[in-house]
């Protein structure tokens, strides 16, 4: 095809007269990978008769004058226009993908042209994914795809991410997007364990309809990750080194005026609580800079001390993290086979002192053609990661926040040698030294992952393929968590109200594996009928097996204190075992009908059989259909338009079933009771879960409509999609009254709805030889609601704290909402306070305090290239939602919380409050002068339930802006590299991620992306003692050989 095209170009060339001083220009044309391009048309602008073609080495010779413009054109590449200035001209052409004909991988690994697809999809290319040098794919994807929300739910090293497409559908089941690696479904944990440098591209199928061929898991949309392959005729070796620093980007806001003490130690003449040398609560007097003792005298008579002023130790506690990343890859290919090999090593030191992590990754991908009919493709990767972290992040952080700010925390790092940092001599008898806690509670984890995928494709006749595929993902894990022993001296145990108690050593150890096997077999038949009609039919079957097992052992009271082995404990070791096996089969049919290259109808149907449900409910069928109409190819006036270069309308409808249930859930369970067996006497207890007898799959039905519009030769591109889905038959575990004898019920009930708008638009205002500027915006509007749960269950707890506050699904509210206690308020929302004490009253029951799902998401990205420099940036905004910060009550308890000093620890009038109007019962008047008496002290307002138990005090706006990525790269020009004959390319870049964060004003606490409930819970909207969010900045140098 290519040959034919350039012959045509030559034939069309007409003779033309030349002027001026003509000389011979020589040069070489190559692609971005420095491979020679043969058959490139080189001609003088406006003088087509002078066209020549490059030879096999990419060389050309043409006669031209200085000042002329040479045009280099080649099918599949962008045309370059270069001014003639010298006799040797080496030109690099960049590949140009015609958006309409771009081939993308869709469900089932089937390739389709973009124009044929009637549902929304996005492609994220390798260079975009790794621009910020995130060590995890999820981090690299943040903010880059409309409709996809990626939240870093935990912070720390190798943090977890939660990926949700188009909002949450399932009330308590899985809502995370399906992850597909080289056409094989893999667990979402792989996102953090793949080498992002290996990724060729990621296709995001936003809707369930598009992904339906992957089976029921695809009801949440899918991310299709394709790894790199070698290219025919190209041999390339790459090496790069990245160094990234990590530092805390946002600290909880703490007060800086008051130190240790409280009214429990008496009050001074101003009513401030007295100073206490051992108190953890910061309700003492205002700072005066004097030198004060800290903690009781030690046994040797010495006593710690501090200046009574603010120290920034709470921020300095967190260290500067360092990530070192080394990458190597080699690829090669010929007409029959290709090979891609890569290796990566990532070594990370976190912001939490002594938390470390490393990951090593190797990959081998290849293809091989055997004869004319058989193609074999394989991709394999092996990853191992190792963690060594503290297992007590939460308590460490709590202890740290309980240190008054007149204590310079960083002084207490050397707890082994410094007698005041040692637990025996540490000033506070109740909250241990956080440095000791983090060192004495450790978790080591190792994970080894193997993913492999082989595909054999048999093409007996043109247009007919038989494809068989076998995928495996297996994880092998082990961990050892331990707590060290500590024996306090008698003196430490009995000084000044001490509650120090000896710590006995314990260890827990476990191993697990999980293996996912996936077989696909399908046949595809493609044919064009007459000239206008095309048909592409697929029939296939899929078999999936998920199996896992974990065994854990634990021992306490270790006899040899520093031997962390489960055989070293006293008493009977704890032991646990869990097994998991589920299978799924699917049979599917898929057909795509085309008419005249501008109208495509796509229909698919799949039937699943699952082992998890009862035989009578285990089979279910779901169909999908979509339509694509390329108006710009159908209508002449658009075809010939200089404005519109591409206009496609699309629409899709779908139904997908999902089984949101683990195996073995259908029967009640009985468990061996606590302590049992006692000798030979066993004892069993009835489990607390009820199961409704005939559970069925959850069904999601939805539609989407949209259009893609490109203007001015694709200088402006845009995609707009509106979607709407309803999910019924929710499989829900709901709490039930314990008086039934049980505490939870698993049943089918409830309906959720998700709808929204996805808009992506990019503009390239400047595109010249030296300059290329592209800016864009991605906007997502999401309306995600719970429509109903059931008559008996008006609300469903997703993740809650002991008092019932937390993240809930509530009928006719956003999904989810934050519920909790509020103050009693009048009709206008003012807080009602007592006319004498000035104190508000806590509400009797929990109520909805906020919407936990971001309604608006906006990303602004841009790329500016000037000659060899490229600057790119990405901002992300989320807004229209709230978050509950559970760190808040703890900070107010300790008195370090910013709120506690809002009124300088004095009496104050509760803001926006009202009191009962004595003249008009039931009416309220503004309270301007009745003060809360006790704004100070550790029995005062700030530490009381009336402040800390009122959830609404800590529900803040979750809105934020983040500068997600900023990078500047410099491609060292070829002329500098020419001296060394082997270096073909060199890029130096500096990049940062999450460099800047702008939180809502009332958010004193932490990153609203966090989720205390974990990355797999739908109970979003809650943050806690996660380590503070980080910014990353570093530099990369990479070479190509």
């Amino acid at each position, binding site marked *: 095809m290519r040959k034919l095209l350039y012959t045509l170009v030559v034939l069309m060339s007409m003779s033309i007269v030349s002027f001026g001083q003509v000389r011979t220009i020589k040069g070489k044309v190559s692609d971005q990978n420095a491979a020679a391009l043969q058959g490139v048309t080189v001609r003088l602008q406006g003088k087509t008769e002078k066209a020549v073609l490059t030879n096999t080495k990419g060389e050309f010779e043409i006669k031209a004058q200085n000042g002329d413009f040479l045009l280099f054109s080649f099918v599949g590449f962008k045309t370059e226009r270069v001014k003639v200035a010298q006799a040797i001209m080496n030109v690099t052409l960049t590949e140009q993908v015609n958006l309409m004909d771009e081939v993308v991988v869709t469900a089932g690994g089937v390739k389709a042209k973009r124009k044929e697809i009637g549902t929304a999809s996005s492609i994220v290319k390798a260079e975009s994914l790794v621009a910020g040098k995130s060590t995890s794919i999820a981090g690299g994807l943040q903010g880059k795809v409309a409709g996809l929300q990626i939240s870093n739910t935990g912070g720390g090293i190798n943090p977890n991410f939660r990926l949700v497409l188009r909002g949450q559908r399932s009330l308590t089941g899985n809502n995370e997007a399906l992850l597909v690696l080289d056409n094989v479904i893999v667990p979402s944990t792989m996102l953090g364990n793949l080498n992002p440098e290996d990724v060729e591209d990621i296709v995001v199928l936003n809707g369930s309809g598009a992904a339906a061929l992957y089976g029921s898991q695809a009801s949440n949309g899918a991310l299709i990750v394709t790894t790199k392959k070698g290219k025919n005729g190209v041999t390339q070796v790459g090496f790069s080194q990245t160094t990234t620093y990590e530092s805390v980007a946002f600290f909880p806001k703490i007060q800086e005026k008051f130190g240790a003490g409280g009214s429990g130690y008496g009050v001074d003449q101003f009513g401030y609580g007295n100073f206490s040398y051992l108190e953890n609560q910061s309700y003492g007097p205002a700072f005066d800079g004097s030198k004060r003792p800290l903690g009781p005298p030690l046994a040797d008579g010495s006593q710690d001390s501090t200046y009574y002023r603010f120290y920034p130790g709470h921020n300095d506690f967190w260290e500067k993290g360092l990530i070192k990343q080394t990458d190597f890859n080699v690829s090669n290919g010929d007409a029959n086979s290709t090979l891609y090999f890569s290796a990566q090593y990532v070594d990370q030191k976190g912001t939490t002192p002594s938390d470390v992590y490393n990951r090593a990754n190797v990959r081998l991908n290849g293809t091989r053609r055997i004869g004319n009919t058989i193609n074999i493709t394989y991709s394999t990767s092996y990853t191992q990661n190792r963690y060594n972290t503290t297992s007590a992040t939460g308590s460490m952080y709590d202890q740290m926040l309980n240190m008054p700010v007149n204590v310079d925390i960083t002084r207490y790092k050397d707890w082994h040698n410094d007698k005041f940092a040692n637990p025996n001599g540490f000033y506070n008898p109740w909250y241990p030294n956080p440095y000791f806690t983090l060192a004495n509670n450790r978790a080591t984890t190792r994970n080894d992952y193997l993913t492999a995928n082989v595909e054999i494709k048999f093409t007996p006749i043109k247009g007919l393929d038989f494809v068989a595929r076998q995928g495996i993902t297996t994880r092998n894990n082990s961990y050892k968590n331990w707590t060290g022993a500590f024996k306090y001296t008698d003196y430490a145990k009995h000084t000044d109200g001490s509650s120090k108690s*000896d710590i006995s050593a314990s260890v827990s150890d476990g191993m697990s594996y999980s293996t996912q096997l996936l077989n696909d077999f399908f046949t595809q038949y493609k044919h064009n009928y007459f000239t206008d009609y095309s048909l592409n039919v697929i029939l296939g079957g899929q078999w999936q097996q998920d199996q896992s097992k974990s065994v854990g052992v634990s021992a306490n009271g270790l006899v040899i204190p520093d031997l962390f082995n489960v055989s070293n404990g006293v008493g*009977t070791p704890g032991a646990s075992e869990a097994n998991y096996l589920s299978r799924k089969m699917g049979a599917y049919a898929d057909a795509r009908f085309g008419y005249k290259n501008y109208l495509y109808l796509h229909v698919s149907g799949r039937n699943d059989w699952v082992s998890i449900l009862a035989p009578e409910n285990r089979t279910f069928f779901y169909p999908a259909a979509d339509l694509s109409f390329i108006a710009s190819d159908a209508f002449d006036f658009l075809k010939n338009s200089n404005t519109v270069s591409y206009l496609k309308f699309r629409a899709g409808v779908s139904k997908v079933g999902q089984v949101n249930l683990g195996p073995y859930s259908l029967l009640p369970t009985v468990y061996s009771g606590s302590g049992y067996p*006692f000798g030979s006497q066993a004892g069993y207890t009835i*489990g607390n879960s*009820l199961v409704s007898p005939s559970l069925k799959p959850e069904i999601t039905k939805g539609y989407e409509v949209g259009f893609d519009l490109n203007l001015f030769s694709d200088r402006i591109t845009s995609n707009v999609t509106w979607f709407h889905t309803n999910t019924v038959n929710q499989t829900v575990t709901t709490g039930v*009254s314990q008086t039934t004898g049980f505490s939870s019920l698993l049943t089918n009930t409830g309906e959720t709805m998700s709808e929204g708008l996805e808009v992506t638009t990019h503009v390239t205002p400047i595109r010249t030889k030296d300059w290329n500027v592209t800016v864009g915006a991605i906007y997502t509007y999401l309306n995600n609601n719970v429509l109903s749960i059931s008559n008996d269950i008006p609300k469903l707890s997703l993740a809650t704290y002991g008092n019932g506050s937390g993240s809930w699904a509530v009928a006719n509210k956003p999904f989810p909402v934050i519920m909790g206690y509020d103050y009693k308020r009048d009709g206008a929302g003012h807080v009602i306070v007592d006319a004498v004490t000035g104190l508000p009253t806590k509400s009797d029951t929990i109520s909805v305090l906020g919407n936990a799902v971001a309604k608006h998401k906006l990303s602004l990205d841009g790329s500016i290239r000037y000659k060899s420099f490229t600057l790119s940036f990405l901002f992300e905004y989320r807004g229209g939602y709230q978050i509950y910060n559970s760190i808040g009550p703890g900070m107010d308890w300790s008195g370090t919380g910013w709120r506690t000093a809002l009124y300088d620890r004095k009496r104050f009038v509760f803001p926006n409050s009202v009191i009962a109007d004595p003249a008009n019962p039931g009416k309220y008047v503004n309270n301007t002068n009745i003060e809360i008496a006790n704004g100070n002290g550790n029995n005062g307002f700030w530490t009381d339930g009336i402040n800390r138990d009122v959830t609404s005090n800590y529900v803040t706006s979750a809105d934020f802006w983040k500068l997600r990525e900023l990078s500047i790269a410099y491609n060292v020009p070829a002329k500098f590299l020419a001296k060394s004959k082997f270096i073909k390319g060199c890029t130096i870049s500096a990049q940062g991620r999450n460099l800047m964060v702008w939180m809502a004003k009332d958010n004193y606490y932490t990153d609203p992306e966090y989720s205390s409930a974990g990355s797999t819970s739908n109970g979003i909207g809650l943050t806690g003692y996660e380590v503070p969010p980080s910014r990353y900045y570093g530099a990369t140098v990479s070479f190509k050989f």
Partner: protein
Amino acid sequence: MIKNMKNMKKLTAILLSGVMLLATSCDKYLDINKNPNSASSATAELILPQALNYTAGLLNSFNTYGAQIGGYSANAGGYGGFGTAFTYNFSASDYSGLFTSSYDLLEDYQTIINQTSTDPNYSYYNAVARIMKSLHFQQLVDTYNDVPYTDALQGGLKFLPTYTSAPVVYKAIADELDAAIAKINAGAAVTAVVPLGTSDILFAGNTTKWKQLANTLKLRIILRANGKVTFSNTSFSSDGFLTADALINPGYLRDNGRQNPKWNTWGWGYTGSAGNKAWMPTTFARAFYDGIKITDNGRGKAVYYQFPTTPTNQLGQETNSTVTIASSPEGSFWFPSSVRVGASAGNATGVLKGPNAGFPLLTAAESYFMQAEGALKGIVTTTTAATAFSNGIKASFTYLYTLPDGSISGNPTADAATYLTDNPTNALVNFGLATTTAQQLEAIITQKWVALNFVNSEQSWNDYRRTGYPKVISTAGATATQTFASKYSESTRPDKLPTRLLYPPTEGSYNSANVPKGISPYTSLIFWAQ
């Protein structure tokens, strides 16, 4: 074209056979949903021992609740954040585990009842489960008043159980005890009856003792109902009342999860780590031993560490610039021994005794004091109040002098006699000095209060709320020996004490239509309370 058709036919054939293969192997491939992790049912023999052990664990929680509210324990030095334990302004989550754990456990007993109701061979199991069900429903009523009873424990059949009025529950559980005794008697006549055997970790299969327990529990119900419930039958079976301590012991030992629960809470963990050090004895309670109210050197030394100088506190008093509150030693002040090495401590008298001690379900002392009250009120005719009172004191000395292995340290009989002579003019000790019925009742209840100190503390708290004994003085400036109310009490009651707990938050969340509203910890009385 013809060739193509052939290909198409072949293709169709291949696909069809594929689909056939899929369909036939389908069931075999998918029938793998049998649970390899947990069983889905268990026999009565397997459920009973665990349920009885759970009862011990739950009674331990009730003891903690009774001790903290009922005047036996106060906050120790070194701890803060007691919140509603100081104010009594309870929130729904305070002690909420008492409610939920009771129903969780009741489901186990109910399962035994359901599984055995039609099988005469399992009459004993059926009866035992009914007796225990009765015991726990009384605990629930005594703590929460109206509770779900008729609609409760029906699983998926009744998701929103309605609340049964407390007197109705009382009547029903008294009937349940009669029915249980009848079941045991009927079972004795069944040749193939399955013995309780080793599943009975309370009475080792002794059905007479089970019937005595049933009688004793029925006595507890009738005494507490105090004429406010019309029972179907107020007589007791001829088996009599418990005369020995009913101790649950599945084989407690110093091991992971296998220690006596009270020891595990207050003493030491099996690794030797200290238990709860946040609480210490009240000044009010020690006054019944140290001579301020009563002199009781025998039991004082058997129960308290460092008696008679055991540090004490009044609830609410914290260390400040003028007062220092002693911190609790490891192993708590309720462990009298001076041998205090966590990994080997034990083998002592008193209330904790050791990791291997049996857990008191109902002591002989309580049985005797209830008989004394029953005799006083004409409910019990088999003994006199004075005899039962005297037996109660002796039984209390005996229980507290008993070591974990059942052997007795010292001479409880002699010390009980000394107790009478040490308090020659005290009508709370020498029953003969109590002349009026009110004085006699005060003596009985006060002695019971002493006998149940940290043994079954919740029963004392119930008695206090019913009778007002032991007497407290709550006028302004009352000392720590006169009242056990918290210094930070927000109670509106004259005695500055709360009167009940609130229903747990789970009822508000999952059964909100039925759960009683407007419950106050100060004014919503249990039906038998003052």
